[in-house]
C-alpha cells in the first residue's frame, strides 16, 4: 500500500480501501457502538502498520563528475580504524605506481550511537585525526603525497561529502574482515556501489594478523 499522497493512482486505491473499511466500521457500529469504535481503531492501526512497512522506490544512481585534470586519476580512500592496515597501504602504493594518482584519505570520525546522539564528538574526531596523521606520514615517507580529512561520523555521509567536493575517479573502501566489520554489517560498500557510478574497490584489512606477527 503506497502512500496515498505519492500519486493519484495511490490515492484512488486508498479510496477503495476506505470504502471497504468504513463499510466494516458502520456494520460493526450497528451491532454495538463500542464494537464500531474498536473496529475503527483496529483498521487504522493496521493501515499505519502496513504503510510504515513499505519502502519507497529505489533511488537512481548518481552521476559523479570527476574533477581530475588530464592524465590525473583522483582516488578517494575511505578508512577508519583500518587506515593504518598493511593491505590498504599496499593497495594505495600499487595505485600510486600505476597512475598519476591524487589521493584523498577520509577517516570518518566513527562514534558510538549514544555519543552521536549526545553530540560528544570531540574524542572520536581526535582519534580519527591521530590515525589519519600517522597514515599520511607513513604514506609520505614512501613518497606518496596524499591529502587527508576527518569525515562525518556516518561513513556514507563522509563519503558523499568527499565525492561531491573531490570528484574522484575511483573509491577505495577499507573495512575489517566480514564478521568484525560494522560497515559490512550495514552494507556500506554495497550502498556506495549502488549509489555512485564510479569504480569501488573493497580492501579487507585484518589488523589482528599484524598485531599477532
Amino acid at each position, binding site marked *: 500500500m503506497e502512500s496515498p499522497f*505519492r*500519486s493519484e*493512482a495511490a490515492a*484512488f486505491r486508498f*479510496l477503495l480501501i476506505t470504502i471497504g473499511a468504513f463499510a466494516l466500521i458502520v456494520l460493526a457500529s450497528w451491532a454495538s457502538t463500542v464494537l464500531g469504535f474498536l473496529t475503527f481503531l483496529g483498521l487504522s492501526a493496521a493501515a499505519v502498520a502496513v504503510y510504515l512497512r513499505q519502502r519507497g522506490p529505489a533511488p537512481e544512481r548518481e552521476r559523479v563528475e570527476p574533477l581530475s585534470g588530464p592524465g590525473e586519476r583522483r582516488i578517494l580512500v575511505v578508512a577508519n580504524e583500518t587506515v593504518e592496515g598493511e593491505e590498504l597501504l599496499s593497495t594505495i602504493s600499487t595505485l600510486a605506481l600505476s597512475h598519476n594518482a591524487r589521493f584523498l584519505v577520509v577517516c570518518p570520525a566513527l562514534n558510538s550511537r549514544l555519543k552521536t546522539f549526545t553530540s560528544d564528538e570531540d574524542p572520536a574526531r581526535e582519534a580519527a585525526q591521530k590515525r589519519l596523521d600517522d597514515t599520511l606520514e607513513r604514506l609520505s615517507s614512501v613518497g606518496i603525497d596524499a591529502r587527508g580529512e576527518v569525515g562525518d561520523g556516518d561513513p556514507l555521509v563522509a563519503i558523499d561529502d568527499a565525492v561531491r567536493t573531490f570528484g574522484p575517479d575511483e573509491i577505495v573502501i577499507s573495512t575489517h574482515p566480514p564478521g568484525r566489520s560494522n560497515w559490512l554489517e550495514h552494507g556500506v560498500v554495497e550502498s556506495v556501489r549502488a549509489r555512485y557510478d564510479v569504480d569501488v574497490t573493497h580492501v579487507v584489512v585484518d589488523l589482528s594478523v599484524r598485531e599477532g606477527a
Partner: protein
Amino acid sequence: MSTHAESLSHHDEHHGPPTANQSSRVDARTLGMLLFIGSEIMLFGSFFAAYFFVRVVNPGAPAEWPPPPYEFPVFVAGVNTCILVTSSFTMHWALQSIKRGQRNGFLAGMVLTFLMGLAFLCTQLIEYLNVGFNTGDGAFASVFFGLTGLHGAHVAIGLSLLLMVIIRGFRGHYSPEHHHGVELPGIYWHFVDVMWIVVYSMVYLV
C-alpha cells in the same frame, strides 16, 4: 540599499536563480498537496470534535440521533455517495488515459468527473432545501449542516481545480510526459471522496 549591491544584483538578474538542489525524492508540489490535505483533515477533525462533544460527551444528548421526529435523508445521500464514488472512477480513468496518450478518454473522463461533482453539489443543495429541518433546530442539525456543508465547500474547491484542468486540457497542455497538473487535482479529488465516505458514515449511518 547600497548602490553597489544594486548594480551587482542587476547583473545577476540576467542569469536567473541557480537551480535548487533536490534534497528529497518527494516532489515539492506533491508534498505541498499532502500538507494541504493534512491541514484540511485537521479542519474536518475540529468539526468531528464538535460532533463528538454534542453527541457523545454532552450529558443532555438525545438517545436517538437525530431526535424524533427528524430523520436524515440516508437514501438521497446514499445516491449522492454513489455519484461521488463514480466520479472518482472517472477521474482515475481520465488520468490513466492521459498517461497512455488517449486525449479523448482523458477529456471525457475529466468532463464526466466535473459533471458528477456538480451533480453531487446540486443534489446536496436540493437535499438541504427538503430535509425538513433548519440550522436553528438543534445540535444535530448544526452538526449535519456543518459537516456536510464543510464537505460541500471542499467539493466546490475541487470543482475549481478540475475546471482548471479541463480548460488547460482542451487547450492541449497535457501529454503522457507532462500531466503533473492533472495528478495533483486527482489526488485532491480522491481525498474529497474519502472524506465524504467518512462524513456519510459518521453523520448518516452511525
